[in-house]
């Protein structure tokens, strides 16, 4: 059984990646999850400097989902390289670093530092965090901005570059195309949906940041649709995510067009989810006599549904 995935020059043993912002710096989970058994570990978003993030409350539950406004609290790229990367290297993790910037120059500088560090395997560009005002999503919500960040980072690194797209746009496929044209090796989507929850008794927003990003199974069908749209728009690999909770969810994303997937919110609910997903994928491959998992990517069969329209 071949579960491997190729993303640019990087080969992942399987399509399961821990989603950025949902897995700390990876080392927090090393005691209970064999990091080397994952396709990859996308570590928490890093700026050049440390950031304190937003005051709590930072999360609130919603039906089948949660809102978060952590505000990209982080230790900064230098401390990451010095204090976290050695353990990740020792544990043979495939490390995908999520990088952030308030300016184009900051993305470039963070990318340059990580490209020189030993044990970083790919860069995921966070141009989609809905919770910070400056930078980030202002690039991700503009086609020229997306193109500019991706091409600037592309120039300073040989690592695979994976911009993470926001769903908070009208036509996500056009952003996928802009990323591909700028030289991205792959795209990942979706980041969280900008959302809000209010306490009706106090009339206060439930989050200090007032708004936050919605994740979890609640967003999954929208994310699947967006992956499907992007698959028809670009040739580069797609890393799909949005509320994946079961092996069937992984397969749904892959059939829609994802080459690999990330699991975020549901890792909070079940940190031992990885072996369950892997077992379920293997069972599916056995049942459907699939030797190579990549063969199912983008194989959604819309023809029968299209015929129904013609005959009606």
């Amino acid at each position, binding site marked *: 059984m071949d579960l491997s995935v190729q993303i640019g020059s990087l080969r992942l043993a399987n399509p399961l990646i821990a989603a950025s*912002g*949902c*897995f*700390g710096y990876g080392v*927090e*989970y090393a*005691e*209970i999850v064999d990091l080397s058994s994952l396709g990859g570990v996308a570590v*928490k978003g890093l700026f050049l400097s440390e950031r*304190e*993030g937003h*005051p*709590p*409350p*930072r*999360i*609130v*539950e919603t*039906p*089948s*989902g*949660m809102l*978060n406004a*952590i505000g990209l*609290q982080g230790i900064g790229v230098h401390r990451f390289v010095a204090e976290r990367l050695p353990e990740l290297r020792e544990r043979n993790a495939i490390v995908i670093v999520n990088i952030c910037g308030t300016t184009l120059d900051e993305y470039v500088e963070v990318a340059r530092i990580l490209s020189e560090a030993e044990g970083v395997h790919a860069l995921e560009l966070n141009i989609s965090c809905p919770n910070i005002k400056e930078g980030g999503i202002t690039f991700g919500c503009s086609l020229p901005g997306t193109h500019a960040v991706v091409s600037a980072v592309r120039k300073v690194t040989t690592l695979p570059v994976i911009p993470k797209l926001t769903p908070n746009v009208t036509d996500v496929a056009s952003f996928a195309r802009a990323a591909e044209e700028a030289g991205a090796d792959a795209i990942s989507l979706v980041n969280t949906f900008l959302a809000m929850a209010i306490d009706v008794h106090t009339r206060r927003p439930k989050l*200090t940041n007032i708004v936050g990003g919605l994740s*979890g*199974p609640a967003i999954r069908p929208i994310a699947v649709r967006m992956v499907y749209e992007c698959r028809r728009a670009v040739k580069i690999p797609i890393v799909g995510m949005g509320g994946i*909770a079961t092996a069937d969810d992984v397969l749904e994303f892959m059939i829609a067009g994802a080459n690999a997937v990330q699991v975020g*919110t549901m*890792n*909070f*609910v*079940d*940190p*031992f989810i990885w072996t369950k997903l892997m077992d379920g994928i293997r069972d599916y491959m056995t049942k459907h006599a699939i030797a190579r998992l990549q063969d199912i990517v983008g194989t959604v069969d819309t023809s029968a549904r299209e015929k129904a329209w013609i005959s009606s």
Partner: protein
Amino acid sequence: MPVDIDAAVIANRRLSADYNVLSLAAPEIAATARPGQFVMIKTSGGQDPLLRRPFSIFEVLRDDSGAPIGVSIFNKRVGAGTTLLSRVEAGTRLALLGPLGRPFEPVDPPAEAWMVAGGVGLAPFVTLAEALASRGTRATLFYGARRAEELYCVELFDALGVSVVLSTEDGSAGVRGRVTVPLSAALEQRPLGNPVKLYVCGPTPMMHACAQLANAHGRACDVSLEQVMGCGLGGCYSCVVQARGADAGKPHHTRTCIDGPVFDARRIVWETIAAHH
């Protein structure tokens, strides 16, 4: 190392309309749990509520031979998750992840331990009282609630030889007033040469007040904080509090799940916690 147990409910003992003690079969967690640690419980089999809830390990349950068989939690019905846990019946299975978090460090004789509990803040103190008893450390529990009916499970502490000082806001049991009234009086009377350490758990304003009293009397004080948690493992950064480092430098957002829930009270920037409650 934390494990995830598909734990059967052994018993659900109702204490009042709002409080219950839920016993769960989880020998692997019971065997390694240290005083003041917590578990993350999935309160429903489905996706609403989606996230687990953190609960202090209330008791370590043992069979007749003394072997650990499970843990109990002290549950107060507040929201959707705790309401589900107030209703579950014996035999139901719940996912239980633990033990988690930085435990209490019990003091040894001749130091004394003073536990200070407000309401549901009683939860982490049975396990601490057991650890203190096994060390031969003299222990006192200052336990406050609004009224007499809301003081629970005092017999567990009596059985461990803990001196119990009750207080109620309406005066229906023990000292009239908040738990800080008898605590303050006891601190006043305590000669400085006799070491005592405070362990506090309860509502944030109560913990803040106890921390101030401890500081004013030059006594060590640990607090067990409760924050909204997403994962319990340090992955999500939801449960942060402003805490100073060990060097008492600039405070940082610090994860309650893995750097706590037990903190030296002097590290906590109380105003930043009170602001969002």
